[in-house]
């Protein structure tokens, strides 16, 4: 295992509206964690805070390496670049750079000081994994939505993160593209080194992918457990109503 993380007592408000209240969870083992819950339950905000893209109002996110050495951030978001370079977040809308597919994937490696000649192998492997090898010279802005999402995954994977955060990676995709993305996620899980933390409100997708599920409701983590336990015997009434399709939100 590369990196684990613990979020402790995370709270967050926007303009007085409480979005997260006292959320705590330890992502201790590698595998796929699914954050699930109705719209507005705080899943994406919790994910962005865990991914160090946003600061919580209170609480903290601690990362631990394999030697259990604490890699807690010190001094705000700007100062922890070495830690931030061990994790990455794939946003629901991928920010594509106006250049070809190859250069888009190379971005994360180049900002780490690697030269084009050093990165070529890694990029080819990443493109092969997501099935975009034949599009490497095409301008990335001309890709379809599904291909763009796959490019986002390749761009995230090529930097070999210890933790990969995914925020609704299949939200706007057709079933075929969704299947390709899910297969890619399951493929990278085989690596067994990577911790994947993913937000989705697609129950069937969560069932297919999750090792563990966290259910959020109204800014709190109200239920969590292993895939089978959670879906067969949810401990929380709201989680039960959500997964049985009885929750109106």
């Amino acid at each position, binding site marked *: 295992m590369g990196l684990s993380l613990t979020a402790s007592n995370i709270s967050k408000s926007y303009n007085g509206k409480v979005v997260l209240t006292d959320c705590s969870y330890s992502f201790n083992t590698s595998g796929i964690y699914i954050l699930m819950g109705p719209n507005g339950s705080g899943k994406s905000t919790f994910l962005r805070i865990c*991914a160090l*893209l946003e600061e919580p109002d209170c609480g903290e996110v601690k990362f631990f390496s394999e030697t259990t050495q604490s890699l807690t951030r010190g001094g705000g978001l*700007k100062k922890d*670049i070495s830690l*931030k*370079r061990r994790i*990455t*977040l*794939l*946003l629901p*809308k*991928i*920010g*594509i*750079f*106006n250049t070809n597919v190859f250069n888009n994937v190379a*971005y*994360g490696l180049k*900002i*780490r000081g690697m030269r084009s000649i050093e990165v070529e192998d890694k990029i080819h492997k990443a493109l092969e994994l997501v099935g975009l090898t034949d599009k490497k010279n095409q*301008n990335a*802005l*001309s*890709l*379809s939505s599904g291909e763009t999402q796959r490019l986002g995954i390749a*761009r*995230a994977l090529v*930097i070999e993160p210890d933790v990969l955060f995914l925020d609704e990676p299949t939200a706007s995709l057709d079933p075929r593209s969704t299947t390709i993305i899910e297969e890619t996620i399951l493929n990278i899980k085989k690596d067994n080194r990577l911790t994947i933390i993913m937000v989705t409100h697609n129950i069937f997708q969560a069932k297919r992918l999750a090792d563990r599920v966290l259910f959020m409701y109204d800014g709190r983590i109200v239920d969590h457990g292993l895939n089978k336990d959670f879906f067969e015997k949810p401990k929380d009434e709201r989680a039960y109503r959500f997964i049985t399709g009885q929750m109106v939100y």
Partner: protein
Amino acid sequence: MESIIEGFRRAFLLIFNLDAELLGIIFLSLKVSGLALIIATVIGLLVGAHMSFRQFPLKGMIISIMNTFMGLPPVVVGLFLYLILSRSGPLGFMSLLYTPSAMVTAQSILAFPIVVSLCHSAILSVDPIIKQSSRTLGATPFQVTTTIMKEARYGIMSGVIAAFGRVMAEVGAILIVGGNIAGYTRVMTTTIALETDKGNFELALALGIILLTISLVINLGLHLVQRKGTVRR
């Protein structure tokens, strides 16, 4: 009509014979405008980027001033610069009036707000998601800034090309501060004005044709840059 046709004939002869006076004027024009553009671009890019990435007091007012100054009347710039550089002016001791340096300064002042405003607009038009994406991939704040600048490159290039077009065609400011001295500060636009006054149309027409050609090349360049910046799915 015959005199116009004759004028064009002689003008083309001057161009095809690579007349020394003509070449000298073209070279000086390109040198003055080129230098002015480099100065305006270097300072304008820094100011435009600063205005886009930082918050500071009176920012909105400065942006409005820059937008207004994009249409600065060249004769007014020439007049103010003349007053500053003339012997009795605050910078009179530098003896810059009626020199190519004064002309470069005047054209830099004219190009500067164009570069700043268009650079600022180009940076603002970059999708905010680019900033977040580069951060999630591990970019430092400086790398995020350079990434956004790179994404805005086509807009910035459009601004620089537009500024070059403006200074190449300008006549009022350089006529006032340059003095139109033959072989020293005489450029294409000031020569056209002078030779037309004198009724010597062949040189004026020859320079007019070249100026139009340069203008066409600039606009073609602008079109190509804008087309390259637009990728369709």
